[in-house]
């Protein structure tokens, strides 16, 4: 990894001495103890001494590789040895009339002890008299001494940079990276709004790379550099101030005067980040150029910057919206303030105004919003905030007009017949769903829409009583709603159902949610208070911005509603509650799919549907190229799940099979896909659910139905054979990665290499398709053999007679549902001191856990030594077993995650002494 160049952004900050609050703050100098230092008579103020100037102490805590320095904790005086090639540092100790020295290398050890203090009588030491605050620069492998200096003593002026290449803490010519991940204090910039979630360009640090060239000439340098574009790269030249230096600046090869510092950015993004770090976070705004006393250098500098931003935005219009938002990320808000003098004569002004923001917002609507990859959602929220911000410069008389303007635009601008207001409501998935709704609430509460007499409500908001057959006449919508919600054991319940109707108004009806029933089922105590609240057969239709007065807004709603809320906020609370309940249900680990039968219609898969839309509709003969990977690299899981939007698009179109086992399996699969796209924080559960359901889809009967269905699509020329193959492959791939926690630990080996006795293999092949578990114990040495089944699908209770002979046996059995060895199998293996335990699945593949691990290189076999360690191992296993059973006893429903944890612990215990194999047909 390249070294960081953030020292440079601090050094080049024109305001670094200008912070009025810090007039009396000491400036810290880190002086490098090297050849130059000794040659210059140990004078820290000498121009030839390498130093780093900081206004805070160097960070040394943590060990994340980001800190340059390690503090050396000693107060002993420093002495050095010096010859033509090196300077070596020692700390001198005088005690009881004897003098010993601790070398720097030993001082850096974590466990320095008495034996490290040595007399070194053959060395000649030079004392260093600069204080005893030592810092070791880890990458440079050099010792620095920290001294503090009052700023007044060193500042000659602020009009120019007092340049000395040695004051960059040893920075030399070469490539460096800018670290802006842990930056802080961003103000007045676009970045500020989204800084709470770090935005990564990708893992490649090429964007962050800056090539640095430093001139050896010490001198006064202009604070603001010249910017040139050279071969597509942005290059900054910090030039010497000719009038203030007493030397003539030589000419460089390119005909310009030589610069003190040359910075070359391979990518515009890196340059933009540099601008944020060096200028914008230090409150130096490009708009300052409008101030009177700004010189032409500064003005030219920012004009050029604006040009580069505009050019980058212009280019992005022709590439992707991702490029646009990636640029916008680093642009300060001020850029979008329209009609600034700065832009008046600028041909790029169209890229810097409000219209550009609206067009960017429109383009965002065409892509799936998510925070996978670039944080599109976060940045979109930033765009809205910026839009609001620039309204302040449009001369509105009051806030209301400004807010009205935004809301009007959101209501009238349409994308695919949806207003922006609702389009973004439907597209925000993560925490930004809440942020967006609060954003709308924030501007709404100070807008004219808060008035129920607003003309827009006249035809959109009304109350109707419903009879069995028809809606009764429309009456004026009530302002007060007895909305009541509650949260019990993680489940939200309320007395209202809220759904959008076709014209984007929201219909409120008495609650018919089945959450109450679910809640009742598991906790037997809903108290009927929710149900009893609202009775009757009515419907109120509200415009999304219609005000609703809630006499007692509760805190127990999924989104905190306000006393006076727009209808949309209540709808949001209800929607959030639905998904939150799904999440809670999953975290309670019962089978949501069975419980939610009332919900599992495809219409509910609204997020998924949108992803499918991203791929565009499939048209006759047009192959899908736009592949959006729904999910990649789940946190904390081993494998990756990828599925293309094209596949989802087709799966969503398979209808008419809802009541069949296949339809159920498909619905389950789509349900888990939906959960995935919602990125509910239940990675393991989702992954297991998804894989499990994919597996069911690939079972013989179901895969035949899928194949037939896909043939229908082919016949209708919606897809072709290769699309079909890809769809089947993708599902199969997910199913095959459906490795349970056990399977993934087994090494796959061709079944021909299985050396099990014929008795065992024969038994396995004869029982592999049995619906009940059958077991065989066989001892190779004693020839003991016993077979048993309890006629149960997942358990074998062996007769007491067998226990006497079980030790040392190979035990095999069939797993009717397939899958790796279970946690119970492992317990059984250890507590019965088996030679091997095996399980055969319906596909004929066999899992085997064998005592003994072979280390091939030396044919060294290490096995469990039952004779000496059996009892102790048994105790360890017992403790895990008791934990496991206790967990099982107290948990509800699906316990996979618990099992996984215990299984891994158990396996870890013995993995170096056993061989776990999955024998398959390769």
């Amino acid at each position, binding site marked *: 990894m390249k070294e960081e160049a953030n020292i440079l952004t601090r050094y080049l900050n024109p305001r670094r001495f200008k912070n009025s609050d810090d007039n009396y703050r000491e400036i810290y100098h880190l002086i490098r103890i090297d050849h130059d230092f000794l040659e210059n008579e140990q004078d820290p103020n000498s121009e030839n001494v390498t130093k780093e100037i900081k206004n805070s102490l160097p960070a040394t805590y943590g060990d994340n590789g980001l800190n340059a320095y390690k503090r050396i904790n000693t107060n002993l005086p420093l002495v050095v040895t010096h010859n033509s090639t090196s300077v070596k540092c020692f700390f001198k100790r005088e005690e009881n009339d004897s003098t010993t020295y601790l070398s720097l290398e030993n001082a850096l050890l974590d466990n320095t002890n008495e034996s490290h203090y040595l007399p070194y009588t053959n060395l000649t030491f030079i004392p260093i008299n600069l204080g005893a605050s030592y810092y070791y620069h880890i990458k440079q492998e050099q010792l620095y001494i920290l001294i503090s200096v009052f700023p007044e003593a060193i500042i000659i002026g602020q009009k120019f940079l007092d340049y000395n290449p040695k004051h960059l803490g040893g920075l030399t010519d070469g490539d460096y990276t800018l670290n802006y991940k842990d930056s802080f204090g961003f103000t007045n910039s676009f970045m500020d709004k989204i800084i709470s979630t770090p935005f990564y360009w990708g893992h490649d640090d090429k964007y962050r790379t800056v090539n640095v060239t430093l001139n050896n000439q010490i001198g006064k340098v202009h604070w603001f550099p010249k910017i040139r574009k050279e071969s597509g790269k942005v290059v900054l030249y910090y030039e010497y101030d000719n009038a203030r230096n007493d030397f003539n600046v030589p000419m460089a090869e390119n005909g310009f005067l030589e610069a003190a510092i040359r910075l070359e950015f391979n990518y515009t993004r890196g340059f933009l980040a540099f601008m944020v770090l060096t200028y914008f976070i230090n409150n130096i705004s490009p708009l300052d150029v409008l101030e009177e006393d700004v010189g032409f250098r500064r003005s030219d500098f920012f004009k050029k910057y604006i040009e580069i931003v505009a050019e980058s935005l212009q280019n992005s219009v022709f590439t992707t919206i991702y490029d646009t938002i990636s640029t916008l990320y680093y642009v300060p808000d001020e850029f979008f303030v329209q009609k600034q003098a700065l832009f008046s004569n600028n041909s790029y002004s169209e890229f810097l105004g409000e219209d550009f923001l609206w067009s960017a917002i429109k383009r965002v609507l065409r892509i799936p919003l998510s925070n996978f990859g670039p944080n599109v959602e976060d940045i979109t929220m930033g765009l809205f905030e910026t839009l609001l911000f620039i309204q302040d410069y449009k001369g509105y008389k009051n806030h209301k007009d400004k807010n009205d303007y935004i809301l009007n635009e959101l209501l009238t601008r349409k994308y695919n017949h949806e207003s922006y207001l609702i389009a973004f409501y439907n597209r925000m998935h993560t925490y930004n769903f809440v942020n967006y709704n609060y954003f709308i609430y924030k501007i709404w509460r100070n807008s004219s829409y808060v008035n129920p007499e607003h003309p827009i409500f006249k035809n959109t908001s009304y109350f109707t009583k419903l009879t069995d057959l028809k809606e009764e006449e429309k009456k004026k919508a009530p302002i007060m709603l007895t909305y009541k919600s509650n949260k019990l054991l993680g489940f939200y319940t309320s007395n209202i159902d809220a759904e959008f109707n076709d014209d984007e108004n929201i219909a409120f009806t008495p609650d018919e949610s089945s959450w109450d029933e679910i809640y009742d089922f598991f906790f037997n105590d809903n108290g009927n208070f929710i149900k009893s609240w609202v009775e009757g057969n009515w419907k109120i239709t509200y415009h999304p911005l219609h005000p609703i007065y809630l006499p007692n807004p509760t805190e127990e709603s999924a989104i905190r509603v306000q006393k006076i809320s727009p209808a949309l906020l209540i709808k949001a609370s209800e929607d959030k509650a639905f998904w939150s309940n799904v999440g809670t249900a999953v975290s309670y680990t019962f089978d949501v799919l069975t419980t939610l039968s009332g919900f599992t219609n495809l219409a509910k898969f609204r997020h998924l549907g949108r992803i499918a839309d991203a791929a565009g509709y499939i048209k006759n003969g047009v192959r899908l190229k736009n592949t959006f990977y729904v999910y990649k690299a789940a946190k904390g899981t081993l494998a990756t799940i990828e599925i293309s939007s094209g596949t989802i698009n087709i799966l969503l179109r398979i209808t008419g099979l809802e009541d069949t086992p296949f339809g159920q399996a498909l619905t389950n699969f789509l349900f888990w896909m939906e959960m995935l796209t919602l990125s509910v924080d239940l990675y393991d559960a989702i992954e297991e659910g998804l894989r499990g359901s994919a597996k069911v889809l690939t079972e013989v009967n179901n895969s035949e139905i899928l194949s037939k269905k896909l043939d229908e699509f082919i016949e209708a020329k919606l897809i072709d054979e290769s699309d079909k193959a890809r769809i089947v492959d993708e599902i199969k791939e997910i199913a095959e990665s459906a490795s349970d926690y056990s399977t993934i630990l087994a090494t796959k080996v061709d079944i021909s290499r299985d050396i099990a006795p014929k008795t065992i293999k024969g038994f396995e092949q004869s029982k592999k398709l049995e619906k009940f*578990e059958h*077991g065989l114990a066989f001892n190779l040495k*004693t020839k*003991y053999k016993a077979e048993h089944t309890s006629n149960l699908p*997942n*358990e*074998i*209770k*062996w*007769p*007491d007679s*067998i*226990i*006497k*002979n*079980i*030790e040392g046996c190979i*035990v095999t*059995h069939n797993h009717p549902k397939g899958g790796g060895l*279970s946690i*119970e*199998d492992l*317990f*059984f293996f250890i507590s*019965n001191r088996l030679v091997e335990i095996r399980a055969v699945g319906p596909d004929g593949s066999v899992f085997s856990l064998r005592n003994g691990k072979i280390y091939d290189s030396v044919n060294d076999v290490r096995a469990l*030594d039952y*004779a*000496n*360690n059996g*009892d*102790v*191992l*048994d*105790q*360890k296993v*017992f*403790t895990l*077993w*008791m934990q496991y*059973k206790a967990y099982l006893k107290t948990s509800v429903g699906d316990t996979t995650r618990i099992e996984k944890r215990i299984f891994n612990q158990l396996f870890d*215990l013995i993995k170096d002494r056993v061989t776990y194999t999955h024998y398959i047909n390769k």
Partner: protein
Amino acid sequence: MNLEFLYYQRKLILDGFDPKEFELGNLRITFNEFMQSASLSDVIKVIINAYKEQYAQHKFFAVCFYDEDTNWESPKYPDNLGLRTNDFYLQKNRMTRTDIEYLILRILKDDYTKTNARYLEELELVFAKPMYNLETTIRESLIGMEFTEESTMNVKIFTVNDSPIDEIKISNEKFILKINRDKWKAYY
């Protein structure tokens, strides 16, 4: 203390579990906690009580002092203690207690053509520091049993009649419990 689990023959169940064993597991946890924290004389009382009327499974005594934070694999057994293949040895640095130097269980493994079981012949506890007045503890523990006492130089021997305990030998340094083979019961 309820020591029922010492005498329970577990069931052989694959892909499932024996509810009784789980229930008794809680007793085993309590037992281990007691054996790791009680005074040494109380520990000895429990051992005697466990065996005086009914032959118990020795595996629970093998690990009742074991410190689960240590590796389950034992270092090589010392050569000078006359340990055989099936004997069990646990030294101080693998125990949570500090007052026991080591524990030895001398085990007989029966032939597979016969019972194929492991039986305890002798349990030996060697103290880290000398223990005095153990006789009283032994006598109290053997209340209700018929036994005789015999003293040699430093060793006191209690011989018990009609009990799984054959004899108990104590000195200031160690405690040895010898099992009566006639009372052996096969556990698996």
